[in-house]
Structure formats: C-alpha cells, structure tokens
C-alpha cells in the first residue's frame, strides 16, 4: 500500500464545507487535519510547518480574505477568529504537494466584488466547480496550469448517504447576513425583526456562525417557529422543504432554485438594498421577491400558490458532489 500523504483542510464556520469530504477521505485511509477556525483555537503555524512540503491542501475558504483584509471589510471577523489564516497565508507555510479549491457559496462561488478572488485562483492546482457553466467561465480566465473540474455542489450529499429520517418542512426560513443583523439588533431584536414570518408551520435555520446558539435560544423561547440546529446540512433541509425563504442575497437562493424548490427572497434594506438583491439574484429564474421592508408576513395565498406552481425548470439542476473525484486526483498524483 502506498504511503498516503497527510491532508490539510481549511475554512471557517459555515464557510467550512469540507467536513463530509474529510470524513470520506479518512475512511479511504488518509490522515486529515481539519482547520475549521471556528473550532481550531490553537496557533496553526506549527502544525502547518510540521507538514511542510508533504501535505495536500484542500480549502473552501475565501482565498484572499486575510484577517488584515477583513479589518477593512468585516471588522468583527478578526476579533471572532483571531487565529484565522487565509489560503494565501497557509499555502506559503505549508508548501503543499497539491492544492484544491472547493467553493462554499453557490451564488458567488469565486468571491464577491469586494474580494475579487479570481485574481488568486490560479494559485490552486485544481478547482472543483459545482456546474459546467462555472467550468467554462473559469477556463477562460485561468491559465491551463490550474485544472477546472465539474464535481457537483459540495454541500449536496447524495440522499441515500445522509437521510436517516424523512421530514417535511412546509416553510423553511434561512437567515443570511447574520453578522449584520446581530450587530444591529442583538439576539432579541433579531427575533422581533423576524417575528411576522415565524408561524408554527415555519422551520428556521441560522447559519453556523459563532454564538448563534444565543439567537436560537431566543427564537425557541419567544416564538412558535421550529428551530433547526445551525449545524444541519442546508441542502438536505432544502430537499425536504416545500417552500424556501431567505433574506439578503445568499447561496441558499441559488441552491434552492437550482434544486427546483419555490424560493422567496425577502427584500429589505438590511445590509444590502433591494435593488442589489434583485441584481444579484437576477439570473435565478425560480425566485419570488417579497417586500419585507414593512415586516409584512408572506400571505398564505402566496405560499399556497408558490407551492402549487410548477415553475420553468432551471437550465441546470444541481448535482451532488463527487467525493470520488477528489480521491481520483489524489490517487492519480500518488501513482504519477
């Protein structure tokens, strides 16, 4: 048997989407070091140095979002994750044999305009993109030294692999931009902000960010909505939803529409403008925009109508992620 190289994965909180893949690679015999900076509180540098030149590096983190850059964009970030290292900090220390990038956000897989991550994606050997459309885009802007592969959506795990119990969520409400809402309203204020939506048939899931359990607790105490733990897989939940609702302009919108679920975007001026939300989501054709600026609940008739409506199918339906694809790169490299 070949002496398998160690694997280092990195990301943070809900942007770390590699735990399933790590589990799979471990079962294939690899030693995997997971740097989810939400739970990894040590200094990562000694570990990275000890694995220097030997390891394979897989990341789902924003390539160039260092703590110093975050200081300008999201000042809370370095305070919450003081030991965080971005891929452009990890790669020079680790000097990996092979590097793989897997995006964590389906709406802006290669970073938003405030980071322009495309400038740095050629630093990876392989990029595993969710759709063939993404593959075509990246192949036009990146040099041939970076190989682009269509491997499906990382958060989408095959049903038979994960679903232990079949549930149905009449309305599934996801919350994005939690950092903004928390800074603006606090836990109780968020509950008040969302209250018109929190009917007994609504299931709410917060993103897996640090200390969201305080908001979950407030939701449980003060509303009739069902709170789903933040660490549950969003794609699995979407699969079981009859209607998906989300604020902001989020990966959830893209995931739900590409999975042909009726999807509602709540329009408001929280962090982004309604015009910005519409613009960012304009390419998704299975989405309904609901004005939430006056905190109006979603009319029951609309919920019924959206559920019954059979919208035009998107051009490409989301595919489950192929863990096997990663394994095949690793094996090919070891056999080379």
């Amino acid at each position, binding site marked *: 048997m070949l002496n398998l190289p160690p694997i280092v994965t990195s990301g943070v909180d809900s942007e770390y989407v590699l735990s399933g893949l790590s589990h799979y690679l471990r079962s294939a015999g690899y030693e995997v070091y997971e740097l989810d900076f939400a739970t990894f509180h040590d200094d990562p540098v000694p570990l990275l140095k000890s694995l220097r030149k030997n390891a394979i590096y897989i990341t789902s983190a924003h390539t*160039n979002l*260092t703590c*110093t*850059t975050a*200081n*300008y964009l999201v*000042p809370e970030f*370095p305070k919450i994750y003081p030991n965080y290292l*971005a891929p*452009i*900090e990890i*790669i*020079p220390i680790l000097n990996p044999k092979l590097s793989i990038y897997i995006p964590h956000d389906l709406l802006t897989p290669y970073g938003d*305009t*405030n*980071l*322009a991550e495309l*400038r*740095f994606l*050629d*630093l990876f050997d392989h990029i595993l993109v969710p759709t063939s459309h993404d593959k075509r885009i990246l192949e036009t802007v*990146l*040099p*041939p*030294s970076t190989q682009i592969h269509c491997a499906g959506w990382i958060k989408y795990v095959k049903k038979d692999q994960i679903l232990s119990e079949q549930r149905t969520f009449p309305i599934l409400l996801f919350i994005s931009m939690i950092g903004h809402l928390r800074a603006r309203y606090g836990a109780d204020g968020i509950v008040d902000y969302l209250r018109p939506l929190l009917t007994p048939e609504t299931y709410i899931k917060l993103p897996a960010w640090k200390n969201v359990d305080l908001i979950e607790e407030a939701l449980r105490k003060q509303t009739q909505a069902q709170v789903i733990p933040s660490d549950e897989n969003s794609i699995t939940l979407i699969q079981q939803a009859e209607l998906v609702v989300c604020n902001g302009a989020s990966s959830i919108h893209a995931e739900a529409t590409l999975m042909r679920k009726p999807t509602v975007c709540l329009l408001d001026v929280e962090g982004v403008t309604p015009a910005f939300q519409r613009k960012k989501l304009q390419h998704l054709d299975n989405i309904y925009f609901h004005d939430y600026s006056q905190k109006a609940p979603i009319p029951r008739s609309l919920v019924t109508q959206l559920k019954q409506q059979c919208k035009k199918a998107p051009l490409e339906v989301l595919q489950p992620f192929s863990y096997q694809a990663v394994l095949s790169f690793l094996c090919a490299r070891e056999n080379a």
Partner: protein
Amino acid sequence: MKSLIKRLIHRLANALLKENDLTPTLKCSSLTADSFFYFWQHVYQHLLVWQDCDVLLTCPMTYSAARTQFPDRNIILIADVTQLVSFYLEKRSSKFEYLGIFSPELCFSLCRNQSLLTCFMQLCSRAMIMITPPDSEISTHNRLLMLHAIGFQQIHTIIAENKKLISQNYSPRGDYFYFSQSPELPSNTEWGTQVAYRMIHFSPNTYPWRVSHGQIVQDENNRFKAFSQQYALGITSVPFDSSALSTKIDAEFCWTTQSKHQAGHASLVSCYTGPDDTKMYALLVVLTHEFNPSIHLYKNTGDWILIDSKILSPEEFTSQDDLKSVNLWLEVSQTQLKAGTKDRVLLDINDVDLPRTGCFGIRFLSDDIAISNPRITVC
C-alpha cells in the same frame, strides 16, 4: 513540427501585440547614459534578491551580466516584445516559483500593459522580481496600486538599504497599506527592485512604521505630509508596559501662509489601538484662524469626541518668511492628557477612556501642514 509550432506561436504573439497596441521594440525612456551607471550600481547592491529565480528574463543589455552573475540559473534572452509574448505563450501551462524580469526595458514594457503583466503574473506561483526604473510617468503609488490590483498580495520594494517598503493589498482596486522604516512612500526617482509576491510572504514585524491609510510623502526638507485632499495615517509602536508613568510624542508642525485658509489638518496620535482610523487620542492642528492655528485634542472611542481646544497665540510659533512652525507635544499619563508647546502646557485634562499603549502616529488630511522629526518618549 517544431518549426510549425514556433511559427504558430510567433503569429499568436503578433496578434496579441496588435490587440494590446504594443510596439514590438523594447522601449525604456528613462534609460539614459547617466542612469545606466546607477542601474548597475543598484543591481550589484541587491544581487542576492535574484538568487531564488527559476528563470531570469533578460534583454540584450543585461543578458551577459546575468549569465556571469547567475551561472546556475536559467537565463532567457528576450530581444523584443514579440519574443516576450512568445515566451508567455510557450510557458503558459507552466508555473515558476520565482520569475525574474532582469531588465529595465522588459519591466518597462510589462508595466505599460496590464493584461500582459497579468499573464506573466499567472506564470508565478510565488513571486515576480522586477527592476523599477526611475519613471516620471508612473508614481510609486500608482505602480503599487496597479500591481496589487492585478493580484500581487504583498510587494517588497527595495530602493536602498535604508529605503525598504512592504505593501499589502486589501481591496480589488489595489488599495494597500505599507510598512517601512520611515513613514514616507519612496519617490520614483531612484532605481529599485520589487519582489511582488502572490501571497503573504511574511509579517513585517521589523518595520517600525505602518501606514494604514493613504500615503505619506517626504518633501525636500524631510518633512512628512499627505497628498493634497488625501487622508493618511502612519503608526509606530515602541516597547511599552502598563507600569509606564507616561508617554510623550512631540514633533515640529510647519505650514506656509499660502495654506492658511485650507481645510487640512495634521495630528500627533497616541494610545492608538485601531483598527483603521479609530481608537486613539489625536492632537490636531488646524489652520482655521487668520494668523493663529488652533490645536484640538480629540479622542476616538468609535466616534470622534472633542476633548478640548485652544488657539495658538503668535508667540507660540516661529515665522521665517512665509514659513511658520511650532513644536507640539502630547503626553499621556495613566490618568491625564497634556498637550503644549515647548515647556508650556496648553491643555491639561483627566481622561481614562482609552487604554494606554505604546502605539503612536502621525495623521494628516491634505498637504497644508507638514510634520517633521516625530519623537517618542516613554517614562
């Protein structure tokens, strides 16, 4: 077959040149006979920087010297821009850890064409090393802005042993902050070497000044100031422990009578914790009065709060022709803030709202007031 591929590459190169409006001959307007000597002087002082290069691209002027100095390196002679593009097209599936552009003319040509420079950047997995010719057309700032915008995350600019600068990108527009031995951004009047890293190369802990916003420049009289209508903040740290009784920063503030109606200001900064332009005490000098500038002591605890202010009387500052100057200091003890000129205390206030730190700075809006000789004392 080989010659067919070569011809094809040559045709592609010509097409790319045409598309980018490039002339095929190398041009470097700054390379006069006088500057030739200084170029080689600079290169020989910093030969070690080039040792890591996997490949050195040279022009006819530098080819022989490169062969002599780096006998074990891969030296490529590029005679014109067509060959430069051909080199890229041949190697575009490869990655070099360090790519050296060992020629002022090649650097000049690359920096005049952003798309070609981006192509060459994508050939590097670690860094591109370049010569920076004195250039009247592109300022140091604009050059850094352009390099950061295309995808170089950290750039080390070496002008001379005592003029080094590390800049780090934080926005897609190419905005950067910089670390240096002195707060000013070097001018582009001397030969320099730039090591442009794709990633974070190292934390520049040994550089005492960090300019987190804008650019600070030094004039011919060694006075620091910002650009017109621009904001700049440079900070520096000294060893400090909480048992220190007091810290003091003092400096000379200068302005001319021509600038007295401008809205600019300059400040001494103490107890800075940041980030950005927040959390500090600032002793600000403003030219708001006809002849007498005023000092304003502010604290920033998230928002700016005016603590106290005073108009300086004419005897506080000196005049020489149209140049006025005043030496000001800001002292922070465990419970008090004091500010004044020379031995005179002008402001004396109790304030404990900000933690005491060993982090000081100079802060500017516009170029109306310059600061020289900032000095820091910890007692």
